[in-house]
């Protein structure tokens, strides 16, 4: 804290930059677009940012960055909207929000759910920003201690902890997780170059994209399933501000999960290569573990929506820590952010904070402005979104399918991704019919390739010595936690059996 005076000076520089009329405007444009892109299924932040990337050439570097960043974290706000209202997540990181958000909407509590997720997003985002302002160097030093052994341990922990996210049969969710891992192996092996399940198709060389899988399993499958369902009668009423107001009980239930979700999200955000999707799945799993009555989950538990939404927003903010302070992008979107800076002659990294403090602190302060704008923007919009549900399904669903296809086509300019969506849409529909959990498949798909990659890398680095997972203290610690969770699960199971 000895740096407090310089922190205030930096905040001053940042505010001065972020509050300039041009930057305010680009911040607004970014978060506004982000919200809409988040709501629209299929068009993810990456697609939107790539489309706007050429414009950043003609902007001041700070404005460019502020706008792109606004799209990125704005999406996290918007993506829960469609997940809650129509069971179609706007992006992969909100897939888990639909598990409890959609039942809430079915109970006529869509307004409350949207309000609480907006609030949780704000809290998650804000805490993420504070962490970035105060502790960036410490966090980066810590994140650098995570080598492949630690990543592998963490992925195993994730799989074990999140094995409980789905309802019903353990065997079914295990089978789906495995199926997800298998789909994750598709593509060229990064070690040997051998083709795995590519059937000679060049399009599959770099693997199956996360967005087509998530949109197929959750979005298209939902559309197909709903064709036969009657529309929601409960939602046809007018949404008043009063009906959006959560009860005292809702708020009481939200506080701890929001904070836990923020913590999990902030942690995963700082680790390059992980990110908001893993964070939201894990925070949901944690809530289900710590809940007194886990059976409420999947039927409209408030904890199940606020925690993942706090997590993905916190992760979105803390993802900037390795990107800006080390110049190491954790994801394709962050690489785009670095690209926007490089083209203007600025190299992100520890040196940037001293050489271009206006850019760094201007960006950080714009996060505050952006988050406040998002809150102000989102709460009044809730009424409009909910009213969208009164649209007849024969208008709403074709539009959703069109958005999904356009979004996926837009990234690669080929129809291949659209076929992938159709494939996973059909699969998702059959899975629902067989009561197989799609969330488990998505989780396996996200974690599987990371696990394999880091396991093999850890083994290469240790030259084939398995002890590396035990010798390294952080890795050992994570494995001990994993063991405890497993043991606890078995103990619970036995206790239920015996008595």
């Amino acid at each position, binding site marked *: 804290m000895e740096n407090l005076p310089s922190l205030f000076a930096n905040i001053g520089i940042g505010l001065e930059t972020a509050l300039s009329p041009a930057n305010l405007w680009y911040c607004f444009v970014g978060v506004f677009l982000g919200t809409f892109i988040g709501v629209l299924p299929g068009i993810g932040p990456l697609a939107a940012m790539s489309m706007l990337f050429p414009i950043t*050439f003609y902007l001041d570097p700070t404005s460019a960055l502020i706008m792109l960043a606004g799209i990125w974290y704005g999406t996290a706000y918007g993506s829960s909207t469609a997940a809650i209202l129509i069971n179609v997540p706007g992006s992969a990181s909100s897939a888990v929000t639909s598990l409890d958000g959609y039942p809430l909407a079915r109970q006529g509590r869509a307004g409350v759910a949207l309000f609480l997720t907006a609030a949780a997003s704000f809290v998650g985002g804000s805490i993420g920003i504070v962490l970035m302002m105060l502790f960036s160097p410490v966090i980066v030093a810590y994140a650098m201690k995570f080598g492949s052994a630690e990543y592998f341990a963490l992925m195993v922990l994730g799989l074990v902890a999140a094995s409980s996210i789905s309802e019903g049969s353990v065997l079914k969710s295990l089978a789906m997780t495995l199926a997800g891992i298998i789909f994750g192996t598709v593509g060229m092996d990064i070690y040997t*170059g051998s083709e795995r399940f590519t059937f000679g198709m060049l399009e599959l060389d*770099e693997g199956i994209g996360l967005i087509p899988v998530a949109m197929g399993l959750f979005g298209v499958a939902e559309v197909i399933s709903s064709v036969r369902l009657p529309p929601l009668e409960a939602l046809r009423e007018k949404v008043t501000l009063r009906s959006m107001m959560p009860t005292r009980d809702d708020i009481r239930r939200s506080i701890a999960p929001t904070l836990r979700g923020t913590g999990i999200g902030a942690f995963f955000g700082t680790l390059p290569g992980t990110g908001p999707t893993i964070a939201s799945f894990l925070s949901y799993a944690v809530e289900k573990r710590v809940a007194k009555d886990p059976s409420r989950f999947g039927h409209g538990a408030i904890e199940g929506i606020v925690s993942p939404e706090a997590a993905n927003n916190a992760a979105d903010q803390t993802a900037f820590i390795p990107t800006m302070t080390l110049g190491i992008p954790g994801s394709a979107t962050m690489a785009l952010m670095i690209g926007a800076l490089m083209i203007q002659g600025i190299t992100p*990294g520890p040196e940037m904070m001293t050489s271009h403090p206006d850019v760094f602190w201007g960006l950080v302060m714009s996060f505050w402005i952006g988050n406040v704008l998002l809150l102000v923007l989102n709460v009044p919009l809730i009424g409009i979104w909910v009213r969208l549900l009164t649209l007849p399904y024969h208008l709403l669903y074709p539009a959703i399918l069109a958005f999904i296809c356009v979004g996926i086509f837009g990234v690669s300019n080929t129809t291949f991704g659209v076929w992938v969506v159709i494939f996973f849409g059909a699969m998702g529909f059959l899975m629902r019919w067989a009561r197989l959990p799609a969330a488990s498949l998505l989780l396996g798909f996200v974690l599987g390739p990371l696990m394999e990659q880091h396991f093999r890398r850890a083994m290469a680095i240790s030259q084939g010595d398995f002890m590396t997972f035990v010798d390294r203290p952080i890795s050992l610690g994570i494995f001990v936690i994993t063991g405890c969770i497993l043991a606890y699960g078995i103990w619970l199971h036995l206790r239920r059996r015996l008595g």
Partner: protein
Amino acid sequence: MRIFSTAMALAAGLFASTAMAEDFPSRPITLVVPYAAGGNVDVSTRILQKALGDTLGQPVVVENRPGGGGMIAGAYVARSKPDGYTLLVGSNGPIMFGPMTSAKPPYKWEKDLEPVSMLAQATNLMLVRADFPAKTVKAFIDYAKAHPGDIRVGISSLVSINHFLGLLLRQSTDSKWTEVYYNGNAPAVADLVAGQIDAGFQQMVDAKQHIEGGRLRALAVVGDKRSPLFPDVPTMAEAGFASIQGVTFNGVFAPKGTPSEIINILSTKIQAALQTPDAVAHLSALGSEAHGTTPDEFRTFLVAETVKWEDVIAKSNAEKAKK
């Protein structure tokens, strides 16, 4: 009747092709980028797009077609109409390494593509983690000989220039080390900075700030001259390893069969665009050097590089077969 119509069509076709070169371009030109937006090749292409501006009299459009290690875009352009309106911005991977290493290459640049002009070149560096004992390439190789298999060399991605430079060094010095593979420059640099691995080849752009900050040490520059950014770092030749040469490049290609008049028009305009101060400055911010060439210069460069790397790959395949 049929003969007559065929003759008409032929004549029309001939007429069209000569007319095509005269008033080329008469509609927008598409530059196909084999990677997603925001990467090095994409940004370089957009710098070229901006520098070309309206000098061609028609707008230039950038289209990203990522996937297949860049070969989806390569195959797309190779199969496009050879009229000069669909061009590929290819780099080492999609032009040479991808087709060289794939069992059934979807195309070969020699047979299916026509070089137009190089766009930019970038410098590669040989790097070690800050606390690695070896301070020179020579010491590094000595260390590798003394501790066979112990040095962990990060490979940014399979079949990339960074991969093959490492391979070339290992083959030509007959050394042994452990290769650790990554799926991109960023995670490989991160692990090198963190000291999880010991060494690796990287482009200047990814390494620059870490060398300046003392988090990485450059042992040598791959190239024929020292970098003005790090005048103390010797070239590979100065370090005693003259055979370790390789250039990161990207350049513009047309489908085979594109009329040479059109290729020349495009090449001249691209070379001029790459000499504008803006293009030079923007590319140098990316760690690259604007480098327009005539189609012939580009072809000569590509032939030499292709011969060299095919040899390295053949040796590596033989090595694998022996195991």
